[in-house]
């Protein structure tokens, strides 16, 4: 009896391996800046901080729970229809998130409009499901999805911070550039509000990240 329990001894909840799953998406395996996934929503919902944060949370919830569900079902899913099963699970979760947003944060949900629905087609989700959840246990899969969602969200929030600050002079809806600065001739940069500047901001983030991380530099 004691032998069995020894061989079956479980990994601690937060082993080094699991922590790595949580940490890697923030830098070495960031979904946006390294894997270049989920760019379209990163361009669209980063004009202001508030929608960006809600979007980041929504994606994190959906990646974490779709990874968890698919991983728990992975041995029962017939391989011939596995993509369909993944899509149905993701779509159901996205609809639930969308409905909750409509019920409790209506104005943000209006700003995010179609982009919540489009989480279904966010490449990060299918990528994590295929690459990780189909081959790993539920708990590490959940952490992997959670980490990737947060890694995506981190970039979203950084981009939104600069776009809102330079484009509207606000942070999270609060005016931070004092009126005196405007009076002396400063103007908000209207270009920051348009999608091209999001692309350029992401480009700058990738540049900074690569310059600081030797592992990411091609020889």
């Amino acid at each position, binding site marked *: 009896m004691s032998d069995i329990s020894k061989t079956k001894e479980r990994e601690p909840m937060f082993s080094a391996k699991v922590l790595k799953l949580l940490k890697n998406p923030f830098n070495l395996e960031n979904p946006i800046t390294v894997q270049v996934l989920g760019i379209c929503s990163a361009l669209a919902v980063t004009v202001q901080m508030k929608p960006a944060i809600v979007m980041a949370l929504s994606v994190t919830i959906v990646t974490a729970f779709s990874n968890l569900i698919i991983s728990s079902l992975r041995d*029962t899913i017939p*391989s*011939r229809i596995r993509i*369909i*099963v993944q899509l*149905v699970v993701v779509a159901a979760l996205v609809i639930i998130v969308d*409905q909750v947003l*409509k019920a*409790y944060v209506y104005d943000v949900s209006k700003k995010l409009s179609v982009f919540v629905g489009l989480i279904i087609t966010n490449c990060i989700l299918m990528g994590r499901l295929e690459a990780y959840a189909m081959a790993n246990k539920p708990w590490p899969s959940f952490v992997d999805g959670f980490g990737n969602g947060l890694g995506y969200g981190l970039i979203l929030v950084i981009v939104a911070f600069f776009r809102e600050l330079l484009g509207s002079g606000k942070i999270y809806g609060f005016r931070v550039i004092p009126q005196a600065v405007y009076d002396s001739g400063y103007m908000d940069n209207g270009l920051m509000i348009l999608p091209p500047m999001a692309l350029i901001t992401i480009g700058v983030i990738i540049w900074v990240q690569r310059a600081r991380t030797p592992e990411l530099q091609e020889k």
Partner: protein
Amino acid sequence: MEHSNKYIFIYSIVMVVVIAVSLTVVAVQLKPAQEDNIRIEKMQNILTSVNVPIASVPKKQIIEVYHKYITTAIGININGDVVEQDAEKVFAIDLANEFKKPAEKQILPVFTATLDGGDTAVIVPLRGKGLWGPVWGYISFKTDYNTVFGTMFDHKGETPGLGAEINQPFFMNPFKGKTIFDQDGKFTSIQIVKGGAADDNPHGVDAISGGTITSKGVEKMIFDNLTSYQAYINKQKKK
């Protein structure tokens, strides 16, 4: 592992049923909260059209503020007769549905606001088409049924930075004080003029550069909707 066709079919059916049931439960549970949001937004829009400042009013108090200012709501038909007196029912009228009916069966809402200082304004809802989808709004008049008191416009998905700007104060504010009838009492509606309206034009406001089709859509919306109210307005003016 290869599964049989039977397994795949059963698996799909069970999966779809489970998901359908859970989505239904979620939708039914959240419906009341979502409907409240839509009602409150409509109240905010109506209040905006009579220039009640609501930006600082918390959502929960909007209903209270609405009932304080909006004193009557009636439904009229194309002949200008009052056909609906129940304010709740009038509030629930969806113009998109009404416009699908033949003209003589439509019920069109008219709201009356009593403002601080005793002014009265008459509010008429609007709905039309922009470039990409529906545009809508409210326009309010002074009691002469001629001078615009305030407006509120919004849209589903006009081009950001161009047509989408119709919901901004710089577009909505110039409507104030414009008139929809000329000196001879002829209906002129309000023109949205590309290149800018002349300062002394009592029936024209500036269009949005780069948003011509949306601007034209708003102009047509005001013209079409107010045309349906002609009989009612004429009756009121005679009183």
